[in-house]
């Protein structure tokens, strides 16, 4: 048997989860459609004045991204939990944190990345400038992985509970507020002519923090939920 490194494990888990997601494409699409719908509802709710929409755009896009990532979080561990795969994963001699990191990455690629790619199209509906759109995308690229990673903690804690979905949002949404603040702050900084680097740096710092700690915390949460 060949030597099995941490990186191999990561790649293996990501590939497995991506294959599983591709076999159930409807789930991925539903999240994306939800995102598009929520964003499109806002102009209908508040009126079509372009000046106001342009001002609201970053907030609307970020909140919609936050909500749609909540929707897909429930699926992060539940399928593996129900068919017993998760138990086998926990028995595996490899690091559970690394495994969890792989699952988080796959979750982001399936539910976060499509939102990032879709965001500029929706931004155009809100008449955002090209520069603001660029900053929005960079912010979303830095921010949506954090949403997946922090959300994974909540998903692990609420594993197998009744009413888990609503509870999950209740636990995770408050923890995601800093991401929302800095993400929208960056786009607003463009429109007021301020420097965007401070907001994006803070988002980057949050991402590094999340990368360092959330896989381990999620692994602990899984151990608590599975014992």
């Amino acid at each position, binding site marked *: 048997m060949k030597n099995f490194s941490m990186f191999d494990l990561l790649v293996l888990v990501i590939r497995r989860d991506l294959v599983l997601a591709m076999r159930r494409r409807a789930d991925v699409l539903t999240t994306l459609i939800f995102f598009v719908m929520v964003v499109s509802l806002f102009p209908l709710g508040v009126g079509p004045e372009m000046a106001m929409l342009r001002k609201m755009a970053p907030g609307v896009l970020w909140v919609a991204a936050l909500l749609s990532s909540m929707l897909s979080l429930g699926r992060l561990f539940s399928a593996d939990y129900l068919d017993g795969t998760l138990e086998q994963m926990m028995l595996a001699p490899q690091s559970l944190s690394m495994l969890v990191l792989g699952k988080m990455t796959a979750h982001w690629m399936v539910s976060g990345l499509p939102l990032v790619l879709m965001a500029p199209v929706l931004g155009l509906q809100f008449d955002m400038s090209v520069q603001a759109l660029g900053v929005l995308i960079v912010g979303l690229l830095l921010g949506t992985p954090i949403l997946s990673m922090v959300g994974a*903690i909540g998903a692990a*804690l*609420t594993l197998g*509970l*009744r*009413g888990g979905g609503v*509870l999950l949002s*209740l*636990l995770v*949404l*408050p*923890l995601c*507020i*800093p991401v929302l603040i800095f993400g929208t702050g960056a786009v607003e900084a463009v429109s007021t002519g301020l420097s965007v680097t401070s907001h994006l740096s803070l988002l980057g710092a949050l991402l590094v923090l999340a990368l360092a700690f959330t896989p381990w*915390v999620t692994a*602990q*949460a899984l151990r*608590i*939920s599975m*014992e």
Partner: protein
Amino acid sequence: MAINWFKYSAPTTFYGLAGKLIPWFAIPAAVLFAVGLYIGFAVAPMDAQQGEFYRIIFIHVPSSILSMFLYLIMAGYAAMGLIFNTRLSSMMATAMAPTGALFAFIALWTGALWGKPMWGAWWVWDARLTSELILLFLYLGFIALHASIDDPRRADRAAALLAIVGSVNVPIIYFSVKWWNTLHQGSTIKFTGTTMHVAMQQAMFTVLVACWLYAIAITLTRVRSIILERERHTKWITELPEVKQ
């Protein structure tokens, strides 16, 4: 003589101790509340800029201080329960959560009542208000997670992990005043001295101490109920005089 420091870390012994301690905290709390509010509302002079409206700080400031400290203490107890696997620590964390949430709610409510005459708005999206609101959400999340897990051991451990993760938020509340310089006034009490009138200080600190005593008394009362509920199948509970009758 060697003192057994761990004697009262067992629910069996702590139940009796808590019962004896409660009056020692509850009665001074009531007295200090009365004294503090009397000084605050009758003795302290009117504020030069804010008139009579400022008097709400005697409730607002202590409750917001308590709401933040209680979260940290709760997270500390929860962490102890998670690390050392002591049942009583987790019970204490569970018992503190509603009081913390109550103080966070009072802080927000009185803040709104104060904001209306001062800023002309019930609510301002300022960093400190928002952080306090997030703190309330964190308390509610802790309580909701604990309530939705039937197995008490798993509930304790899951909620503990959530509390520790959430406690990352409490320093952000504290530093938010410096980070986002907005409408909310900075703190008047500084370590380098204060610009407050003596009577105002006295009232504030008296109410603050009263709030601490109240929080301790109510936590002990609640932890006694939790002990009774969780240990109801044990022999010593059935032999308690208040259970037997």
